[in-house]
């Protein structure tokens, strides 16, 4: 006998939940589509909060622990909202050999922010990448989705200064 489980209501009235629902519907609400659904949530909202995880888990009929497990296992998913700007420093081998680590330390020092964190004013999120595949342009940095190649400390600082109005 099949048990009927009522479809849960989205956490709020936000229209973006329709996108999430569409992804789940396309795969017949199968638990296999958990990762794809989380991708859609992150694309639409920028991060995964508890409400989103509960909603997706209930809709796909997987335990919340599994949804949380998947969301924390994969680096691509973020449980916290990002800052207004994001600065991704590539630490792939080629970038590391050509000084990516120094670039990272510069941002950490200048903005007082650890990798994976956002500055206290919510302006800049500092992230690291394993490899962007732009090794020919090492060291590479992504400023708000735009890849910049052959970055040095000077050009990095110049770019960050544009984002932070209250320069120390």
């Amino acid at each position, binding site marked *: 006998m099949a048990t009927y489980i009522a479809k849960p209501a989205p956490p709020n009235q936000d229209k973006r939940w329709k996108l999430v629902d569409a992804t789940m519907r396309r795969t017949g609400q*199968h*638990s*296999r*589509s*958990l*990762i*794809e659904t*989380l*991708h859609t949530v992150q694309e639409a909202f920028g991060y995964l909060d508890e409400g989103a995880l509960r909603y997706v888990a209930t809709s796909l009929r997987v335990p919340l622990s*599994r949804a949380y*497990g*998947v969301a924390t*296992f*994969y*680096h*691509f*998913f973020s449980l916290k909202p990002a800052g207004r700007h994001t600065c991704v420093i590539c*630490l*792939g*081998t*080629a970038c*590391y*050999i*050509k000084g990516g*680590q*120094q670039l990272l*330390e510069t941002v950490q020092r200048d903005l007082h922010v650890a990798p994976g964190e956002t500055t206290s004013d919510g302006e800049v999120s500092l992230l690291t*990448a*394993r*490899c*962007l*595949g*732009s*090794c*020919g*342009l*090492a060291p*590479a940095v992504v400023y708000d989705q*735009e*890849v*910049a*190649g052959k970055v040095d400390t000077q050009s990095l600082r110049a770019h960050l200064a544009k984002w932070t109005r209250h320069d120390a």
Partner: protein
Amino acid sequence: MTPEELEQIAEKESVAQQKFTKQIRVCVAAGCLSCQSDAVKDSLSKEVARRGIADCQVKGVGCMGLCAEGPLVSTSNDQMYKHVSSADAADVIESLAGSRVQRLHCPTDVPFFQRQKKIVLENSGVIDPERIEEYIVRHGYRALIKVLTEMTPQQVVSEVMTSGLRGRGGAGYPTGLKWSTVAKAVGTQKFVICNADEGDPGAFMDRSVLESDPHRVLEGMLIAAYAVGASEGYIYVRAEYPLAIKRLRTAIRQAERLGVLGTNICGTHFSLKIDLRLGAGAFVCGEETALIASIEGKRGTPKPRPPYPAMEGLLGQPTLINNVETYANVPPIIRNGGEWYAQIGTEKSKGTKVFALAGRVQNTGLVEVPMGITLREVVYEIGGGIPDGKKFKAVQTGGPSGGCLPSETLDMPVEYESLAKAGSIMGSGGMIVMDESSCMVDVAKYFMDFCMTESCGKCIPCRVGTYQMHRILTSITNMTATPADLKMLEELCDLLKHTSLCGLGQSAPNPVVSTLKSFAEEYKAHIEAHKCPAGVCGTKAQGVSA
């Protein structure tokens, strides 16, 4: 879609192409795009339109290889231009009728271009990756038609066996053997999977192939599916490659519309549905059992093998998993025959290999070379040697699972066996050149940090072992290690290699083992003399990052 219809499309497209006597090709793969090559393409198109040159075509193409010199532009009068900006549009267009633009000139008669042998990359930098017609003109989907109309699945498998093709993902398992295992396996349904989770830092071959020639990978998967009897396929691609994802989606849609993908392909009983699955940033998902878990919507943790995916893979069914480059090799093998492919390369390593050349080398970019070429030829001739008059120290192959090869190995041929003998692996094709300014202990620590962070945590040797090895390497670079620490490090290498569950843990010690073997004096200098010969360690704050 019948063979005749395919020929008609090719015919129509080549007539359309002949209308253009002049052509300007702009690289729109990720490397050049990040140098704003799309703006270059736009301004070239606008300038051509403004001047009303009807017989000149401006098109976006895939990777031309020399990524460091981008944006790259090539023209129909055999010129290549580097560092092209939007402001150069007028000069480039004028050069089509006159002499070349000297300040942008990029010579193509140099070893970087001449020493390569292109099979996988033959369409790369030539065709527009977003148009299926251009792929069809360049013999696209002919191999598929050939297997569907002339060959039995067994014949396809034996052709691939004859070719001697081996897996290009790193381990080098014979492709034909894998196909025949899946073909013989019994299951209610079979799957083909393309592993495009290119996680090795410093490797971007698969991304380039997917961005430059996506249909070739689809065709390779179609032929594989026919050979093993699969009806469903997945491409597991990194979410970090948005452009590759976009072009694959376009390619799948176009192939479905033409009827070379979907149900009853080309009017036969053969059907295949291909879907994309996005990775989410976990290196371990490059391991096949972890990849399958991820496609099933779970955490990417590996399982003990056997059973191998060839017997029990996705949803417990026989599953064929091959790398992007492996599939990309299949259509030319079918078109030209396995014998043709087997003539290229060495006795045990056939064909060509694509390498991503990066690090301290003059020409960074993507190269395809025949197997058996020496490392010296790759680094010094194709790569143009080390810049700034520095001295060569090592070349790292195989990413975090590989090793560092010292200058003594420069004359060694590049093939699966010789690289393994020298303490490294072929790997997926990342090749990072290091000069005297790199400290090998620091490099070993870098890779250990990578493996430690990427360990999935399922088995203890890998989860705890990588942490302990990283701790010891950090103390060496902090100059606080003792000789006993070094001994412990060696023991841990052995332990991880023999007791870890999957390839990640088993090969995690490789960078340490290979640097201990070839650069033992550097370890000694750190421990005994408290000095870093390269001057890298101790100059900055070092800490264990979890």
